[in-house]
């Protein structure tokens, strides 16, 4: 049997089966709608539910509802679900564009941040305008780590519904600057091996080559790359290596490229 013939028979059988199978239609519809919704969300950017502006939240809720209609109802064409989704996403971009163009329009759509606690205390008028209670303010303050209102200099209700809190200076967390200490600059660790695989794009960023990685593995008594759960290196040369189901080890890469424990 030729491969071409086998392929043809396979597709014939598949299409005969698929044509009479209602459940399979739903499976395909679910896949199509999933891909479309995923694409649209990627296009709209990364936003967490709590970080959404009001119009983004509305869009998310409607999209969720619209996507399910053609998925479950076979008599409704998939386009009846997709076209409203596309329309809403285009509308979203138009709104976002107009918000960038005009501050007033942005305030009309998203509202503006409101100061609810100022140095005089709670601004009751602001609470009334926002239609929130003192309990809501306390809940938000506790969420930010402040349990007493006298610790707070300003609290601002953001347009996404989150409260930003500025503590009074004497209640602010101690920083290195307050202590006037000299500390090394923080650097971001770069993943070199992630779940047994070398992240090749990151080798260039960390300015490492494979021979240095081999030196690190040898020093940590690791035989194969696939035994490593995580290997990170930061700009200062600090190495973090953890094998699967074992405790991590740390080491350093000297400026000369030598690996030291």
């Amino acid at each position, binding site marked *: 049997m030729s491969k071409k013939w086998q392929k043809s028979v396979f597709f014939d059988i598949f299409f005969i089966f698929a044509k009479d199978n209602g459940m399979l239609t739903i499976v395909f519809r679910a896949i199509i709608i999933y891909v479309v919704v995923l694409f649209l969300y990627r*296009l709209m950017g990364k936003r967490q539910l709590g970080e959404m502006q009001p119009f983004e939240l509305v869009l998310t809720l409607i999209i969720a509802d619209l996507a399910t209609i053609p998925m479950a109802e*076979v*008599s*409704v*064409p998939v*386009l*009846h679900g997709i*076209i409203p989704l*596309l*329309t809403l*996403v*285009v509308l979203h*971009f138009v709104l976002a564009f107009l918000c960038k163009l005009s501050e007033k329009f942005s305030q009309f759509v998203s509202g503006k941040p409101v100061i609810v606690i100022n140095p005089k205390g709670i601004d009751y008028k602001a609470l009334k305008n926002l239609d929130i209670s003192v309990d809501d303010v306390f809940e938000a303050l506790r969420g930010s780590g402040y349990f007493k209102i006298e610790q707070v200099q300003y609290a601002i209700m953001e347009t996404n519904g989150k409260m930003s809190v500025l503590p009074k200076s004497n209640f602010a967390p101690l920083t290195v600057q307050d202590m006037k200490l000299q500390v090394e600059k923080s650097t971001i660790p770069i993943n070199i091996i992630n779940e047994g695989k070398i992240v090749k794009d990151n080798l260039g960023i960390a300015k490492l080559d494979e021979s240095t990685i081999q030196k690190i593995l040898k020093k940590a008594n690791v035989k194969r790359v696939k035994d490593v759960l995580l290997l990170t290196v930061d700009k200062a040369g600090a190495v973090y290596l953890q094998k699967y189901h074992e405790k991590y080890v740390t080491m350093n890469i000297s400026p000369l490229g030598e690996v030291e424990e």
Partner: protein
Amino acid sequence: MTKWLWFKLVAVLALVGVIVGVCFLEDRMVKDALGEVNTRCYEIETAIQENGGIVNGEVASLVDNLEYEWFKKESGLCFLVNHKNTEQLGVEIVRLKTYIDEEEEIEFYVSLNIIKNYVETFQHFMGAGVENIL
């Protein structure tokens, strides 16, 4: 502008293009399919008047043609229109054939008028008029 912003701009324009394209396509396909049905219904009526009844080869042939054309166009319409909105038309066309076999002229006329009425009301239902939008 970064590559991502360019991509977004192109994607949004493409989405607008898809929306406009689908709207035009739907309008064209629906008008084409329903116009065809309407024309054929009038042809059937003319044939009945000329032949003095429904039991003759010409009417049967015209009904067969109507059925063939409708089911051919319906499969295309299914991409754009809710199947439930179009299935009634198919049912009435099939009934026409049965009424010819059974020589039930009154029922034949009823079904033919239902089809004509359906075509007219469906065209109203499809348009983006204020009454449909609201």
